[in-house]
């Protein structure tokens, strides 16, 4: 029997050693393969990657959601121009200056803003962004030689530029990087589904949808995932460190929007709301003591749905902008 037991132990050890060796082989294969096309020959891979850099010229007012190299050349004095960048919720934007030919002394400027700013309203708001507003502007004329690569803190960024002399301009390369825990997001589309997780971080995160939407929260967990400790506030959400709020408004800044609903109880199910505002924001406030998670879906509120108003319809809270 001892010999049989020894045989079993040896067999287990041999099996473990063999599987470990096999795993190492797979890891090596995975490590060497960033490109997904393992079966292609070298010539075909070269052909595929040859024209993969997307290039086009920029307009004075433009928006980019893809990677590539983009060039702006002024054909006339362009004094008020901006380019918006937006990615998927789990992406960060990186802007590299490839070539810049502007006359800073002559009044030209080229500034990157970490976020979006529209009519003076910023996203993320000053309350939700780690940097003060002044540091969110990175001026090429001040720091161009030092900082040629700028990465955003969320899935949106923008540049402002002014060029007086025709023929002057710049070229930038836009890349995207993965963000493991997206915090502040502007949705590219009027419909979608998203799960926001704040793992033991003392921060506030906003998800903005710049359309009138029907939003359905299907899962909200405020507290430890294992359920040993959950927040049980006595009355409402006042004084609660962790909660989710729905905001609606006509601007971009969540701190200037109207609170429509507070959620500070964990639940599993669906809570649906129709919000007819130009901008709908789901904002999670997290104390950092727990792991908080919320899952929600949304789709655009069409005119027919807006007319059939039932409970949870809050269109009347959105006033036109002054």
């Amino acid at each position: 029997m001892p010999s049989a037991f020894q045989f079993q132990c040896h067999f287990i050890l041999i099996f473990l050693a063999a599987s470990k060796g096999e795993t190492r082989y797979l890891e090596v294969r995975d490590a060497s393969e960033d490109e997904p096309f393992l079966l292609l020959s070298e010539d075909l891979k070269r052909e595929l990657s040859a024209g993969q850099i997307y290039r086009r010229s920029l307009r004075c007012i433009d928006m980019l959601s893809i990677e590539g190299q983009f060039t702006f050349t002024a054909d006339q004095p362009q004094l008020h121009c901006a380019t918006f960048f937006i990615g998927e919720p789990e992406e960060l934007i990186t802007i590299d200056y490839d070539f810049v030919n502007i006359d800073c002394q002559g009044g030209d400027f080229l500034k990157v803003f970490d976020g979006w700013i529209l009519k003076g309203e910023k996203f993320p708001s000053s309350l939700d962004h780690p940097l003060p507003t002044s540091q969110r502007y990175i001026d090429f004329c001040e720091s161009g030689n030092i900082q040629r690569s700028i990465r955003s803190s969320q899935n949106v960024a923008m540049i402002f530029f002014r060029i007086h002399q025709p023929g002057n301009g710049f070229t930038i390369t836009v890349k995207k990087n993965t963000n493991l825990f997206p915090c502040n997001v502007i949705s590219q589309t009027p419909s979608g589904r998203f799960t926001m997780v704040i793992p033991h971080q003392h921060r506030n995160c906003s998800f903005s949808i710049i359309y009138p939407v029907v939003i359905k929260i299907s899962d909200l967990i405020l507290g430890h995932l294992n359920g040993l400790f959950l927040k049980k506030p006595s009355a409402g959400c006042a004084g609660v460190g962790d909660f989710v709020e729905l905001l609606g408004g006509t601007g971009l800044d969540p701190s200037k929007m109207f609170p429509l609903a507070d959620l500070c109880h964990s639940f599993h199910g669906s809570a649906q709301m129709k919000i007819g505002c130009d901008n709908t924001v789901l904002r999670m406030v997290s104390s950092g003591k727990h792991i908080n998670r919320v899952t929600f879906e949304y789709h655009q509120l069409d005119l027919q749905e807006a007319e059939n108003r039932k409970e949870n319809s809050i269109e009347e809270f959105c006033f036109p902008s002054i």
Partner: protein
Amino acid sequence: MKIPLLVSTGILLVALLPCQECRALSKSPAAAPGALHQPDFFQQQQQQQQQTLPVLLRMGEEYFLRLGNLNKRPVGSFPASSSSTSHLQPEAPASNFLRAALQPLPERSLGSPEEGEAEGEAVEREKRSEEPPISLDLTFHLLREVLEMARAEQLAQQAHSNRKLMEIIGK
């Protein structure tokens, strides 16, 4: 003999001093349509520009700040903006800018104390003002339009990449 030597030395020094005002930054020569490096400024002209341009630049920023403020008149020079959002003639801001820019210049010609005072005032004004509101006066409707254009471009690019991949795999 010494004087010509000193003069020639001075000219050489002036000619060889690095020009830091020009910002023609090039990383890849191929990516520069119509790219011309900024011409080197003569040192004296550069010094004069340094004396006058910082104030103009600050005044320009302040002007742009005023335009970007929500409570003030909106920017009216975007061709894509709807007529309801702006009713300001494009020439009016330019004339305001010229008026504002011209005002401190006669003071600056008096000498360095006034010059420093004007610069100090401009710096203080800038500090006292709210967060730099360089922003775009664009409606949500237009923002959605450009967003949808960007989305269409992304889908077209993805379709192109998929088509190319299928062509390559089919070879």
